[in-house]
């Protein structure tokens, strides 16, 4: 049975809703009441001319009668069937009778479609949260703290509970351990709750337009091939219908990113830039000299190359307040998801010294410290002219370190809350992690 066969049901529903008699409607559209009765019970199809006449007589749009409000309902039911784990031939047969189901049990059908929509929303939330769990350094570090403390408490408490012959000194030691771990556990849990409260997360799991843009860029591997051509893909086409860019604010940010990306691509066309990169290596100063383009554009270009065309780079950009406005993570270089980053990042040194290029090897704190070579630079702009305010933006390019550790690496972290460097002179708040030197 085709979906349009349900037009009769909709005709009947509409007629009854406006209190029109079957005979009156039949007369208005110049058919017999008996024929209209057959139509209303979906036993006769409605031709285009009759559909027009019925819609005029009933005061509704033709499409409302032809397609009804059930389109979404049908889609929902089909999704429910597709999501069914059974996949049996019986399920396929039932799918063939979906229109009959809707016609006979519209209430149940609506309920089922609503449940399916809710399941879809929940699945997207779970997916977003899983993604967040995997990529949020604070959450990951907090949960590791919790699991470690719980492991210790569970194992030690079990020894105490199950051992009758435990020596007094061991008993005392285990009591001390459990007490210390309970403090650690409560601190980690409190920090976790405070963090989750502060994140003001939406149901999708993405809390800000910037995160939406980052999710979109991560999916494109930060390279927008459509903008590299002489006749680029229109910006609107690149952001239209992108699931990651759910909010209007995110699409606006994405359009600003695209405009800057295009300007950089025009200043540093891809092929010549890749040739220069092959000859000079990823040294931004050498690339800027050779191309005659500013350091900031070179930094951005290095961070938007096709996958595999250059070294694995990270790039962070901040405004004059220190707020990170762009984050492309480098493998092993942990970027904070919320709040301020480590004040020892060369990025902030560059912010304090506009137009002075800074090259600094660093070592990122962690259970497994990782070394990087960073280049940082900031430049003031005056978009409002002589009378407007100065706008400063700092950039830091993050490259993997080469060669052996020299000892000259600057010790840095991600952010104070998850940094284990207890003796850091720049610390602004306690860490939730056990401290190291």
């Amino acid at each position, binding site marked *: 049975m085709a979906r349009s066969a349900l037009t009769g049901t909709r005709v009947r529903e509409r007629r009854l809703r406006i209190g029109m008699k079957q005979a009156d409607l039949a007369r208005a559209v110049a058919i017999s009441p008996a024929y209209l009765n057959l139509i209303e019970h979906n036993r006769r199809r409605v031709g285009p001319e009759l559909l027009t006449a019925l819609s005029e007589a009933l005061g509704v749009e033709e499409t409302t009668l032809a397609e009804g409000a059930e389109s979404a309902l049908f889609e929902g039911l089909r999704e429910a069937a597709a999501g069914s784990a059974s996949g049996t031939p019986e399920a396929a047969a039932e799918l063939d009778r979906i229109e009959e189901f809707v016609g006979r049990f519209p209430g149940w059908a609506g309920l089922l479609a609503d449940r399916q929509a809710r399941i879809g929303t929940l699945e997207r939330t779970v997916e977003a949260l899983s993604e967040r769990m995997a990529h949020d350094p604070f959450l990951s570090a907090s*949960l*590791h703290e919790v*699991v*470690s403390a*719980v*492991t*210790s408490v*569970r*194992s*030690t408490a*079990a*020894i105490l509970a*199950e*051992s009758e012959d435990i020596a007094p000194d*061991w008993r005392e*030691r*285990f009591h001390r*351990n459990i007490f*210390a*771990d309970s403090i650690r556990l409560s601190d980690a849990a409190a920090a976790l709750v405070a963090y989750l409260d502060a994140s003001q997360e939406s149901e999708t799991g993405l809390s800000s337009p910037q995160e939406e843009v980052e999710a979109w860029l991560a999916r494109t591997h930060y390279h927008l091939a459509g903008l590299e051509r002489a006749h680029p893909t229109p910006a609107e086409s690149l952001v239209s219908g992108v699931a990651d860019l759910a909010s209007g604010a995110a699409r606006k940010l994405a359009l600003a990113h695209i405009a800057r990306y295009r300007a950089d691509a025009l200043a540093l066309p891809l092929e010549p830039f890749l040739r220069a990169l092959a000859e000079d290596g990823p040294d931004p100063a050498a690339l800027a000299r050779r191309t005659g383009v500013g350091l900031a554009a070179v930094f951005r270009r290095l961070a938007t190359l096709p996958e595999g065309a250059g070294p694995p780079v990270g790039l962070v950009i901040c405004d004059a307040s220190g707020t990170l406005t762009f984050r492309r993570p480098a493998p092993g270089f942990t970027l904070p998801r919320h709040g301020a980053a480590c004040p020892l990042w060369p990025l902030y040194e560059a912010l304090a010294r506009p137009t002075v290029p800074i090259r600094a090897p660093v070592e990122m704190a962690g*259970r*497994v*410290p990782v070394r990087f070579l960073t280049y940082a630079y900031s430049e003031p702009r005056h978009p409002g002219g002589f009378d407007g305010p100065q706008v400063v933006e700092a950039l830091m390019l993050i490259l993997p370190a080469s060669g052996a550790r020299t000892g000259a690496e600057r010790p840095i972290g991600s952010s104070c809350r998850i940094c284990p460097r207890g003796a850091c002179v720049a610390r602004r708040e306690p860490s939730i992690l056990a401290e*190291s030197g």
Partner: protein
Amino acid sequence: MTRRVLLIEDEPHIAEAIRYLLVRDGWAVASHGEGRSALEVIRREAPDVVVLDVILPGRSGYEILEELRADPDLTSLPVLVLSARGQSSDRALAEGAGASRFIAKPFANAEILAALRQMAGA
């Protein structure tokens, strides 16, 4: 003959609890709390079994395990991997790196003992 186990775990209270359990069970226990020199310690101690944490200072347990499996002298050494991440993907990661057994934290003490006894053929 006394079975020897090397425990590579940087959380001191977890290490202390496991050490107590194993000593009481008749094992000779050596322990180490850092990743970078873990392979040297494994070679020096020549244990019957290794208990290896994943997240260690200096070097991850997976890196240690991969290098260990590349060494012909250590390729068949039984290694029990302990991880704070217990999802199936983490288990697969451990097995891919060469783990003989995988146990997620928090664990039951009896689970650790049973696994080590079985791995050591006791």
